[in-house]
């Protein structure tokens, strides 16, 4: 682990430049002050009770020096920071638009090509992207450390950010603005594909990510969906309650709903829970689960259920 | 170098001379008025922003307000400020009876203001206008509500001061509480001077 995360976007290098300059200036001043402080504290430590000290009340020259030099440095730093900021805030004309919606506690991405993904953002290497962002409920913040980009997303209004991904790979997306219980689980991935790989992804149909995945056995596909589509943000596999009930031993379980009715978690119940979560709320939980209608195909829901069945 | 003649600092209480106490109270009061300005400030800032954002909403909604009632209330409050000021001068000249009566008139005016406001609010509720109707009315209710709260606090303070005045506690040598009560009351007036046009006239 280096002290600074990998620089994986066109902006990262520039931000790192500012960061480096500030770090150097800071280290300089810190070392200077500490060295002088320690030197004085040792050199002039009290040896006798009746030591005489000179009556020095100040010195204008010094006063001016240590006002003017930091001032100049600070103004330079401001300008440098501003120049890079301006860059970070001005998307190029040819950027492709991807719409991001943040809601408690998922990311949805809508692409210019009509595709839609959940918690996974696919972008093409070296192609500028403009993210147009909006929240459904409360504030969130879209943050990719390796790209050095961050922007809050707000309900009722669009905000934007842009970048050119320069390295192929998978990087974390964090929600950086506190948004409630699931804030720390509101994670995503940005997957930077080489132009060739991106074209293949673009041609893939539906929401499955490629033929390779669909050919998995259902339970394994279900597990993959569980991780990719963000079920893991709220449902644990080990019996602990995060935000929603754990999936452990869920299948066949009986329980009580908020409205007092009791239920058995059979296939139909699970399908309904995923497509219309607000209809039947399990007792003791909040109605916060988003509907996955239009996000998970029927095959995928079947796969999830197959996966849940394996969790005894 | 000033001379120290402060031997009277001995003893059980802070022996400040009445003049010193007067200076101290007055500065304190003005500082307090400064915080009051900032307290209303948040609402004024919100007003400025939302008015600039939604001029039509403000224009439309303010027509629901009753200009006449607002104007009447403005006159009542300005008049009460006059009587309060006269009360202060009266007590400074040692005229306790006049001062007491003037404060009484001020209080009556304050009550009158409250009565008018009561009818105004009542009329709003009758038209199903509540604080959550729209942002203009949110501001209207919060600004006038906070102002009303100040009026009530002022009335309570003036009530006490009036009783003490009639009891003869104050005179030309010592009139600090009357003056402080006066400053506070004028501030209440001052805030209304802005609220009236902002809410009733140029919504």
């Amino acid at each position, binding site marked *: 682990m280096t002290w600074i995360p990998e620089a994986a976007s066109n902006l990262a290098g520039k931000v790192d430049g500012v960061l480096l300059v500030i770090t150097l200036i800071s280290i300089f001043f810190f070392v200077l002050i500490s060295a002088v402080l320690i030197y004085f504290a040792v050199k002039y430590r009290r040896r006798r009770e009746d030591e005489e000290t000179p009556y020095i009340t100040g010195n204008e020259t010094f006063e001016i020096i240590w006002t003017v030099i930091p001032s100049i440095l600070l103004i330079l730093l401001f300008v440098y920071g501003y120049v890079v900021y301006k860059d970070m805030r001005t998307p190029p004309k040819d950027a492709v638009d991807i719409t991001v919606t943040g809601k408690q506690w998922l990311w949805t991405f809508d692409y210019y090509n009509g595709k839609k993904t959940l918690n996974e953002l696919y972008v093409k290497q070296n192609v500028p992207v403009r993210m147009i962002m909006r929240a459904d409920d409360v504030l969130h913040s879209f943050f990719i450390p390796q790209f050095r980009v961050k922007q809050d997303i707000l309900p009722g209004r*669009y905000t934007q950010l842009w970048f050119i991904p320069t390295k192929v790979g998978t990087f974390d997306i964090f929600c950086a603005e506190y948004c409630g219980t699931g804030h720390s689980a509101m994670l995503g991935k940005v997957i930077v594909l080489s132009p060739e790989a991106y074209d293949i992804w673009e041609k893939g149909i539906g929401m499955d990510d490629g033929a390779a995945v669909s050919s998995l056995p259902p339970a394994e596909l279900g597990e993959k969906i569980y991780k990719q589509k963000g079920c893991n943000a709220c449902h644990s596999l080990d019996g602990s309650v995060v935000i929603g009930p754990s999936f452990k031993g869920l299948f066949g379980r009986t329980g009580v709903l908020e409205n007092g009715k009791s239920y058995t978690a059979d296939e139909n119940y699970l399908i309904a829970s995923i497509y219309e979560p607000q209809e039947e709320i399990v007792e003791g939980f909040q109605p916060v689960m988003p509907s996955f209608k239009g996000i998970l195909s029927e095959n995928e829901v079947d796969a999830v259920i197959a996966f849940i069945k394996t969790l005894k | 170098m000033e001379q120290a003649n402060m031997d009277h600092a001995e003893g059980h209480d802070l022996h400040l001379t009445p003049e010193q106490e007067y200076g101290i109270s007055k500065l304190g009061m003005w500082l307090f008025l400064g915080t009051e300005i900032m307290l209303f400030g948040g609402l004024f800032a919100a007003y*400025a922003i939302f008015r600039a954002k939604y001029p039509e909403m403000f224009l439309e909604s303010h027509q629901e307000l009753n*200009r006449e009632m607002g104007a009447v209330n403005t006159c009542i409050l*300005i008049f009460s400020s*006059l009587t309060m000021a006269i009360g202060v001068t009266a007590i400074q000249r040692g005229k306790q009876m006049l001062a007491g009566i003037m404060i009484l008139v001020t209080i009556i005016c304050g009550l009158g203001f409250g009565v008018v406001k009561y009818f105004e609010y009542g009329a709003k509720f009758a038209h199903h206008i509540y604080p959550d109707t729209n942002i203009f009315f949110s501001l209207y209710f919060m600004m006038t509500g906070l102002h009303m709260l100040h009026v009530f606090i002022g009335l309570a303070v003036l009530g006490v001061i009036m009783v003490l005045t009639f009891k003869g506690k104050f005179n030309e040598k010592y009139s600090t509480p009357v003056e402080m009560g006066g400053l506070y009351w004028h501030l209440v007036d001052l805030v209304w001077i802005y609220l009236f*046009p902002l809410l009733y006239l140029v919504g």
Partner: protein
Amino acid sequence: MSEHTHSQEKHITSYKTYFIVWVALMVLTFVTVYISYLDFGQLNIVIAMVVASIKAGAVALFFMHLKFEDSITWLFALFPIALLFLLIGMTILDTFTRIFPI
């Protein structure tokens, strides 16, 4: 207590002054109400605020005796107003220079 005990002499404002100020306030109130029936477009609020500020100034200077106060009182009377302008000014600046991508 070092704070100069000299000139603690109070200024007592005469009843006459108060009456004059009051009449002025009433006239100005009438003026704002009257003007509000006319339409000066954007100027409406400016006029209203100028009139209100004159009134407020009169209340502060005479009813509240600010005219006869020392510089510290003036400072503490004016500084909050400056801050208020700052608060309003900067929030407005922010609100109306934002960028909306769509």
